[in-house]
């Protein structure tokens, strides 16, 4: 794989897309138009980084889906940050189905990303975090985000 990889499965009108790697000024979405999709499922767990030019290219590309429903899956924190910061990064027809939340234990310094899934850890208007998150040593970890900011896209 080079800097990035885009896979689009158009076998059915429910397009399945996976993006991996670095989304920056070199990304070329031209060959991956979403025009004609009845819906788009976007797997984002392997996105490593995104810069300001990558954000712009993403918004232009996701617009090719038109009004088709778009679902974002396994969003890493860097993607959640863009969803919250940049209007249009998640299109109007878009919905986040799962995303990662960083957890932290201050005493041990351990870090972990926990996947929140729609219908389980969050709904259209509320966040229901897991009862307890522990690191590999059994230490209880705390959610390491400013909730009002990180979950802003949910409360909209």
């Amino acid at each position, binding site marked *: 794989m080079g800097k990035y990889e885009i896979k689009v499965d158009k076998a059915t009108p429910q397009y399945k897309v996976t993006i991996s790697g670095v989304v*920056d*000024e*070199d990304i070329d979405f031209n060959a991956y138009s979403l025009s004609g999709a009845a819906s788009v499922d976007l797997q984002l767990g392997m996105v490593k*980084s995104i*810069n*300001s*030019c990558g*954000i*712009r290219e993403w*918004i*232009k590309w996701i617009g090719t889906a038109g009004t088709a429903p778009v679902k974002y899956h396994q969003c890493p*924190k*860097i993607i959640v940050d863009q969803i919250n*910061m*940049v*209007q*249009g*990064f998640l299109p109007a027809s878009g919905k986040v189905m799962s995303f990662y939340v*960083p957890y*932290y234990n*201050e005493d041990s*310094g351990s*870090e972990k990303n926990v996947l929140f899934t729609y219908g389980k850890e969050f709904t259209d208007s509320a966040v229901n975090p897991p009862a307890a998150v522990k690191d590999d040593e059994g230490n209880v970890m705390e*959610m*390491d*985000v*400013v909730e009002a*900011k990180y979950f802003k896209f949910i409360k909209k």
Partner: protein
Amino acid sequence: MKFFSADPQFFSEVPMRFSQIYSSVSAYDLASCPEVLGRESVLVLNGTEPKELISTFTQKKCWNIIQKNDETFVSDLEKAARLIEKPQLYFDAQAEYFVSEPQDMIFAEFNAPTDKERLKKTSEKFIENLKNQNVHESVNCIVEELYMNAVLDAPREAQQMGRFEHPYVHGQKAKMTLVRDDQALAISCMDPYGSLNIQKFIRRMDEVYQKGAGESLNIKRPGGAGLGCVIMFEHCSSMFLGVVPGKMTVVTCIIPLGLSYRQRAEVKKNLHLIEI
């Protein structure tokens, strides 16, 4: 040198210490703050969010805003005061100015898109031993935007100013420096164009914060997306924008170490402009 603050405790402690070091220091209540603050003024705030800070910066035409973060406040004031008195220090030392006892340092020179992978590998090597993932993420984001400013924006801004001599074509290079101690990591990027219009940069930040990043995104015009300024600011605790017009631009971002994502989010930001 003038300090403006609404905090009564500020007047009883810090100015006395400063007036022992600097030849001319005075402190004023924020209420007596003039409409426009000059280069030798420092506006001291407490608990101001980035959007409001940039708005204040734009309205007051500030050159320095420092916020009262308990851990670093006095050090921030001292560093800023030295730079007001001797701005050349910033351009000479760049990232090293901000780290008192460096534990690690690395730099990379570049002037073309083909250099980007090497630059990123250099910064990734530098941070690989740092524990906190939030620092890795912020360093990567800042390096990306500083690289684009230096390689893409600086030459374009110079051309728009009517300057057609291109230092990169003549072999000159930009330089990214990363240096850290156990408290903080500083990233500086120097480019040899000196084409940064710092007031335009601040106005752009204000536009992004006021209108929203999506509304102000540059989709159609040539050039960058116009979000890098805010992305960098969001990922650091202090940002320094320095320019020697026609010669050199140096942008520095400071990231505090040893904090979680949430703890870092609670650190209020500082912003400084330097031009000689």
